[in-house]
């Protein structure tokens, strides 16, 4: 592949929660050849409104097309291009890690350091819940991987713009 100026971008999308709206958004990405790295979607406090957070990659031209194309969808109320604003983002992961006699203490130590939680326990496994930004999740995954991750489920990023001071 040729060298590109691809960067990762986080986009927030506020949409009307009507049937097919997710298909329209995801279809737009696949139909026009844009990447989706992660996508999260859930209702907001306002009735009928859903917020999505999509992490995508591409060059600036692609990002600007994505934002404009999303805005063009009739059910899209607002698009937040976080490349232009400060934002906070978090992701949650459930990680099922091997927790035998000799590794349990180490797992718990990691849980402690990362302020994770043990949400399920079985004779051979602990399931951890951990929330954080990308860096934090990457770090804990790397550590736990050495002990033995059996399964992992990540939510993908949710993001909001920082409020103005």
């Amino acid at each position, binding site marked *: 592949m040729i060298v590109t100026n691809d960067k990762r971008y986080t986009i927030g999308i506020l949409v009307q929660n009507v*049937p097919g709206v997710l298909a329209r958004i995801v279809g737009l990405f696949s139909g026009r050849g844009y990447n989706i790295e992660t996508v999260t979607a859930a209702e907001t406090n306002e009735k009928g409104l859903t917020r999505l957070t999509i992490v995508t990659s591409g060059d600036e031209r692609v990002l600007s097309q994505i934002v*404009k194309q999303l805005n*063009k969808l*009739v059910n899209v109320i607002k698009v937040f291009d976080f490349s232009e604003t400060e934002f906070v983002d978090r992701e949650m992961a459930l990680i099922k890690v091997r927790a035998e006699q000799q590794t349990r203490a180490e797992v718990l130590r990691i849980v402690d350091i990362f302020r994770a939680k043990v949400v399920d326990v079985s004779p051979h496994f602990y399931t951890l819940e951990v929330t954080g930004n990308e860096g934090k999740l990457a770090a804990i995954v790397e550590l736990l991987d050495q002990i033995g991750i059996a399964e992992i489920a990540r939510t993908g990023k949710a993001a909001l713009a920082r409020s103005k001071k």
Partner: protein
Amino acid sequence: MKLKGAQIFFECLKKEGVEVVFGFPGGAVLDIYHEMAAHNIRHILVRHEQGAAHMADGYARASGRVGVCLVTSGPGATNTVTGIATAYMDSVPMVVFTGQVPTPLIGDDAFQEVDIMGITRPCTKHSYLVRDVKDLAPAIKEAFYLARTGRPGPILVDLPKDVIQAQTDFKYPKKVDLPGYRPTVEAHAGQVRKACELLAKAKSPVIFAGGGIIISEASEELTRFARLIQAPVTCSLLGLGGYPATTDSGDGQRRPDPLWLGMPGMHGAYQANMAISHADVIFAIGVRFDDRVTGKISTFAPKAKIVHVDIDPTSISKNVEVDVPIVGDCRNALEQCLEFFEKAPIEGISEARTPWLDQVARWKKDHPLTYCPSEELIKPQFVIEKLHEIAGRDAIITTEVGQHQMWTAQFYQFDRPRTLLTSGGLGTMGYGFPAAIGAQVAFPDKLVIDIAGDGSIQMNIQELCTAVCNNIPVKVVIINNTYLGLPRQWQELFYEKNYTGSCMEGSPDFVKLAEAYGAVGLRAERPEQVESVLRQGLAIQGPVFMEFMVATEENVYPIVPPGKSLTEMLLTQL
């Protein structure tokens, strides 16, 4: 009072001022057909649903009103897809109603069930699956509103059978509730000023106008503007007619307009491509810089600062880097530009512009659009020139797709908006004939002519029956070169003359075929018959096929070979 969904359907159409529906029935929409007779709406029964979609499209492009078609579920719906995609690419306002299986059966692979919303999502501006009869009127209201506002486009409304059978109180909503839909109509004054300042300083400006001019009814403004700032004008295929190709020279004669460059791009006029390539400012309006226009993108308009006006922000800086983006309605932007220059006319404009206009005139003179006339063979370009001579500037011309389409764009002088209807974006063979029928329904008294190829006409030829049965007097000029000419030309130039798959020998006798349908068929085989066949055919009251047996291996020139720059046009046969 409670009404059935099917009745509400017609009440809504009436509220929207719909006078005609192009349709084809089937089980899922029989409730609607059952109500049809009681409502004063004209129904044109087509012979294939693709025809219905193109007719609605032709009706819309010719009139500016929303075209409507109605088809059944499953195959009826899928048959419209090419028509929907054609309309989507060319921003045509259209509402397509499809029948659907009853809501409890949706998802069960019921008989004639298809997820038409899913299939058409990428080629509709928006779509609705109406799940409750209470939502029917608001959906239809929104569909028409979306179809015709902003950048127009096709809207699909999927109607499950139980929904059109159910009853509810009918009230047509006064307003639409679309919080996510706010097209920018008013062009940003500051951006317009920037654009005008650029133009005021320009030495070699070019106006490049497209379909947006036609859609926003801005031809008059465009014409005034071009003349005011003395900038030559080139129009994309969809923009032809947006600026008059000819002008009244005072003696009752019409001559080529001095600012008119012709169409740019792959088969564009020499002077149009040269002007773009030498321009210092390009004022692009209502265009989207299709690759057929730009040629090799990295060398497109290398010297120019580009102003780009379009109502669709996604069109701007998509294919070419734009220096002054202006989001807004083309007419609105032009009105503001006119105001700017009427207040602050460019001093000494005519002298200042002389060198540039002289240069353009030299290009025109050195390499005009021409062809080699013949006394033995009918040249396709000759047929189109003659047709223009006889049918004139008021006729509505539609085309199919191929060489004949390009010759039409080059040799028919379009002076008025909405007189050329052609599938530009999708390039749909089979578009022109049904589109002509739709246009003729919108304008029963106008001369409406489809310029067709021998290949394309066979793609929707069944609609001749529709024309005959409904007394729709469209004329079809078949440019018969016994080839799929455009692919053949490419094979000749770029694929070692390997003509696999492009020979159309064995086509039916179009004269007899016309007669079999109950229409008139005429044929010209020699140049001297061309005029008389045209005169005779155009004078007939009903639908007519006029077949012209033309030189078989004539090519369209100029041609910018694929991947080449606009200045690398081949001008004639090598």
